[in-house]
């Protein structure tokens, strides 16, 4: 009986393996195909796109780009605006989250536990819960069409504080901090020159995620930025759906491709770290 079972299981193992690879390859294709069609169609003329599906690039890259740029779509401006907002908000998010995490780990203060609980609770507040009040407040401050309300709120990034705290608890030894104190360094100096370098791996991971989240954000910029010259790339994407490009399919695909090209570059350069970061985010014990 044991023997029969074993030979049976070898057959079923090969069968299983085939099923596993087929399913995985189909899912992988499902991930690639929409973007592949997008990039290919960006190089095809409207007539070609209308005549059917193709997976081989065509020759109309230049025409599509020219048509795209001749109307209100300005990808360079959008790229620059998105880069400004995402860049500065990433810096704010990782620096101040590290500082807050250090305050939670290195010092023994009365409100420490309460403060940490508040941070955990704040993580759950949906952006829409404060959106109307936030908009009205910025309207009264004349801060609409300004990048500051999209950058400064990232100083309080609870999820990053949570992650940084876990990291510091595992890696920071108070002896280093003590040694720095004996050498006469101030607390702020110690944080910047001794603790920050220790945190570089955690900062790098969190910076990638903070940057991508800010880069992809649509809701807040859409509410706050009404001037065309201030649009970020995700808002510009909505222009592609409007009437101005109604029949210029190639240009629509071109515009879509341009908005995500930087992300593809970042992703394929850093995918190892990104995947590792996602895995770490889930194991919160």
């Amino acid at each position: 009986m044991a023997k029969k079972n074993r030979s049976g299981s070898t057959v079923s193992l090969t069968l299983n393996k085939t099923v596993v690879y087929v399913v995985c390859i189909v899912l992988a294709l499902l991930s690639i195909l929409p973007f592949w069609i997008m990039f290919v169609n960006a190089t095809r003329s409207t007539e070609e796109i209308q005549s059917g599906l193709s997976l081989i690039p065509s020759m109309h890259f230049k025409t599509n780009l020219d048509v795209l740029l001749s109307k209100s779509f300005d990808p360079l401006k959008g790229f620059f605006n998105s880069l400004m907002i995402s860049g500065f908000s990433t810096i704010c998010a990782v620096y101040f989250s590290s500082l807050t995490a250090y305050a939670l780990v290195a010092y023994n203060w009365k409100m420490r536990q309460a403060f940490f609980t508040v941070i955990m609770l704040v993580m759950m507040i949906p952006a829409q819960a404060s959106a109307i009040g936030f908009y009205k407040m910025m309207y009264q401050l004349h801060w609409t069409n300004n990048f500051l309300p999209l950058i400064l709120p990232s100083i309080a990034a609870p999820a990053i504080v949570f992650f940084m705290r876990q990291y510091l608890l595992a890696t920071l030894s108070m002896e280093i901090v003590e040694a720095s104190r004996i050498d006469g360094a101030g607390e702020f100096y110690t944080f910047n020159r001794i603790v920050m370098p220790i945190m570089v791996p955690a900062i790098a991971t969190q910076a990638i995620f903070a940057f991508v989240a800010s880069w992809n954000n649509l809701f807040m910029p859409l509410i706050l930025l009404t001037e065309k010259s201030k649009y970020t790339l995700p808002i510009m994407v909505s222009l592609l759906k409007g009437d101005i490009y109604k029949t210029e399919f190639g240009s629509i695909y071109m515009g879509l491709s341009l908005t995500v090209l930087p992300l593809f570059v970042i992703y394929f350069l850093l995918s190892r770290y990104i995947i590792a970061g996602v895995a770490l985010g889930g194991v919160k014990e």
Partner: protein
Amino acid sequence: MRRKGINYSKFGYLFSLPFLLAFLVFSFYPVLYTAVIGFTDMKGVIPKPVHILDHPFDNFKYLLFDNVSFRTSLSNTALIWILNFIPQMAFALLLTAWFTNQRLKVRGQGAFKVLLYMPNIITASTIAVLFNSLFSYPMGPINSLFETFGWIHEPVNFLQDKTTARGIVAFIQFWMWYGNTMIILIAGVMGINPALFEAASIDGASGWQIFFRVTLPSLRTIMLYTLITSTIGGLQLFDIPQLFLYGGPDDATLTTSVFIYGQAFKGSYMFNRAAAASMIMFAIAAVLAGLLFYLMRDRDAARARKANRIRNKAAKAAARGV
């Protein structure tokens, strides 16, 4: 050798001050302000004197009992979330079972993870417009593809059909997130004590038995975490329905966030109603978050109690030994 004690605790307060200030100014105050607006008659683009309503709960009552769109938006949000979450969890679990199976030894796992996770990092707005173009009618990539395979004989206007449109939004959401859930679950499996798997296979358990009896129970906390974060994320679903079909056709993909945006920033600028809707959404999120805290804390406490009991037993045994 004892140095004079310096009290460093003030730096704890000082270093968490930026966080606290940013939170109070950009998050706490706006939430309160939104709540207040929900009780007023604030509307229109031009600022006018704002009054608290004679019956303060009128906006809430109106939304919950008289506004069909709002109720549709709540049920759409729930429906789209369920349609995305069930296959998302199913696929993530299946792939986790395969990728962590010691006997299958799936090759190219790194590449598969990179590809399956990829849609998650791409701008949701772009994905929404891209899918809108892919499903376009009468000539679009999906229509051509289906015709080539012979699945359809004439072009189908997918985006005019309410069920199909809702299904596509749920599919996009599934497609963007199952890779993420899978990676989290695989990391969870890596964290399980390998001795458990060894013991099970020595006892003659099959691959599926090991998965259902050992792996799944150990993943409960992580699955719960995914469930709640996904619910709160799903509650806020905005980019995809907004740019895919602006909530249409006939409100079929109108989610709560799209409703709030539409009330406040389109047409009549009903800030009060949008604020009231935000607060209802906030209440739902708060209940869900409370549930998460309750379930997580309970488990931790139970574990601590258990560890304590074992320690006591060991201490007693040791005492007896002496």
